[in-house]
């Protein structure tokens, strides 16, 4: 499975995590997550995923974007990630991920987003 294929499983992963949805219950936002060259558009509503659109969408506006290389996500989603690959900010510090746009909702709900974007770690087949 490619990193983008793994991320495409996000709806099931978030549905299975009631605690994460509870922690995100104040959050409603549209954002974009790039897995390598593949964009994903997330519509989050009260901490749940209302929509996940894979691939480019013409003129789609978004509040903020988190971009990471394929390698960044692959290493980040290992069952026990190696030092320097284990946190979103470890990835941005080493230059393999970035944050762009209006970062306020991201920072207001930072632990939620860190945990959301780490969910593919739970998929079988993670190394």
């Amino acid at each position, binding site marked *: 499975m490619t990193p983008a294929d793994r991320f495409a499983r996000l709806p099931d992963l978030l549905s299975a995590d009631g605690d994460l949805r509870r922690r995100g219950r104040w959050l409603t936002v549209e954002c974009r997550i790039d897995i390598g060259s593949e964009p994903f558009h997330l519509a989050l509503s009260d901490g749940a995923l209302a929509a996940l659109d894979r691939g480019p969408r013409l003129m789609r506006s978004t509040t903020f974007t988190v971009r990471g290389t394929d390698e960044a996500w692959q290493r980040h989603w290992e069952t026990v990630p190696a*030092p320097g690959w*284990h946190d979103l900010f470890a990835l941005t*510090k080493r230059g393999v991920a970035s944050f762009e746009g209006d970062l306020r909702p991201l*920072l*207001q709900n930072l632990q939620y987003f*860190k945990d959301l974007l780490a969910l593919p770690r739970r998929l079988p087949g993670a190394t």
Partner: protein
Amino acid sequence: MAPALDPMIGRYLRLEIEGVPHRLYFEEAGPANGIPLVCLHTAGADNRQFRHLLADPEVTKRFRVLAFDMPWHGKSTPPDGWERTEYRLTTASYTAAIRAFCRAMELDRPVVMGCSIGGRIVLNLAIAHAAEFRALIALEAADFQQPWYDTAWLHRPDVHGGEVCAALISGLIAPQSPPVSRHETLWMYMQGGPGIFKGDLYFYRVDGDLREKVKAVDTKVCPLYLLTGEYDFSCTAEDTLRTASHIEGVEVQIMKELGHFPMSENPTKFREYILPVLDKIASQDRG
């Protein structure tokens, strides 16, 4: 049944730091004639980070462990007029606070162990005041570290300060650390006063660059130990090793499966690394 009491005792110390009256909270454990070991917590946190060390008989049988809440932190009362001040820690004010505490407590050449900003200031103690100390232990310390986020996010009305501080530093904890200890460490970060973590980082980011200065450290005057967790991407293993390469006689160790908060994120693992260092210091003291 007898009450299940932890062994440490907490008290408040009245003292002056740079001419300003303070009331500092500290906890201590161990014999009054033990080797004094003063512990310095990380930025934006408090002395609870050392509660496992304070309760470890293997440590307290020889050491009198003292951990104080820095001014403005934990249960230490902020100085009068705090409401008209923006808190900013500096190399000078941090060094003054540590020396004032040791003096006021009448400690005889204590060992000082600090973590993160506590580790950085320990390097400054080694540079400027080595003769006052028996040994110095810097955890998660380097002479300089590359910033990895904008501290402006730590204190603004539209972002919950406690939650954002905890969420930012959560990634510095090793994935192997027990969830209970991880979340206890985060809980402490959620409880800092407004702008205090940011004010501490002023020292870290703006005022405390010790590159060049560390070359002046003389470990013959006072032994220096550097220990850094491999999962700390704020103070990386490379940062610590680079710092060590400039200091003759320093002992350096990279700790496996630990991050930026070794004493609180995984006390059992940390013990494996810190007990041999404390043994060495105790035997140096006998010799």
